[in-house]
């Protein structure tokens, strides 16, 4: 994985490479949302992400992040950032977030056809897309 939006390399190298980010909108629905962020983390940990990083503890799973410690330290403005290599896990996480009406914004970064088919399966209507238009300029 290179970046949550811009990827380097051929498309087949990131076919099953999904980044999932969830966060509240500051100033709109962030006050008192820590329990919902914690629940999101619990669901993600139960499904088993390939990796999950935290700005709060400044660690990630591969470095030995402790899920329970992270959940305990979660605050209203703690974003959730993780990645999966299995389509099915992304489907399950989204289904559970939808069923439990968590209400935090969620973005999934991945090949558009795959993400759209995941949304269809879960019963979600994708809202907006961020498209990578490539790189420019010179490195001197």
């Amino acid at each position, binding site marked *: 994985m*290179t*970046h*949550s*939006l*811009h*990827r*380097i390399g051929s*498309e087949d190298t*990131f076919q099953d490479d999904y*980044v999932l*980010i969830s*966060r*509240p*909108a*500051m100033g*709109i*629905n962030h006050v008192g949302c820590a329990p919902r962020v914690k629940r999101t983390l619990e669901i993600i940990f139960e499904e088993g992400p390939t990796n999950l990083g935290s*700005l709060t503890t*400044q660690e990630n799973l591969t470095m030995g992040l402790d899920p329970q410690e992270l959940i305990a330290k979660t605050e209203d*403005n703690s*974003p959730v950032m993780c990645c999966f290599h299995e389509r099915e896990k992304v489907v399950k996480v*989204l289904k559970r*977030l*939808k069923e439990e*009406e*968590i*209400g*935090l*914004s*969620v*973005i*999934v*970064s*991945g*090949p*558009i*056809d795959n*993400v*759209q088919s995941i*949304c269809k399966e*879960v019963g*979600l*209507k*994708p*809202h*907006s*897309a*961020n*498209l*990578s*238009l*490539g*790189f*420019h*300029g*010179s*490195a*001197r």
Partner: protein
Amino acid sequence: MKIRQELCVGCGQCLPYCPMGAIERGKDTSRINWDECVECGICIRQSKCPVKAIYEPPETMEWPRSVRKVFSDPTSKHENTGVRGRGTEEVKTNDVTARFKRGFFGIALEFGRPGVGTRLGDVEVITKALAEEGIQFEAANPLTFLMEDARTGIIKEDVRNEKVLSAIVEFVIPQENLEEICTKIFETASKAKCIFSWALISRFEPDGTLPVVERLEKIGIKPSKNMKINVGLGRPLKEE
């Protein structure tokens, strides 16, 4: 960032962690090139220096050097936005903020990535050209805060030479200006003195399509198949 020379054993363990290649290995110890260091903090957080020789001296937070850390270290907060990270929440919370509405597109240019960093003054080639087109830069973006005048795109003199890991320019355009603005960016890109990546944010149409892809392809811009999709789970949902 600096390395305490009296502690460093010159093992070189921290060198590969620096995205700027700013850590230089000497005969007995390593040193950080002060001018090239963007204060991202990766060395101190990740390299597990065996003697804890890496430290953040107080000068790091003196103006104008202090802008390096806020633009390069995702764990630090921008004072004017209160948000951690280098830009706004962009597409991530668009289902709740409606920052990018139907009939408009969001554009974000990220300077310095991948992997080279940028001097803040170098982004001006693009910001000036965009200002000439009448672009209004996103007020909640920390780079806009460092412009002398957001109507001209000129960067403040005292921060121009500060090197940062990345700086993001964000703005919104009406749908009908897509071809004109993208062509302008494309033309100006050849004059840019640093690397930048660019991205466009669009609402899906009610039928689930993204017509902007075809419009971009018509002017020779091919968006990547990898996209960042806001799946519409945020509440209260804004449909506008």
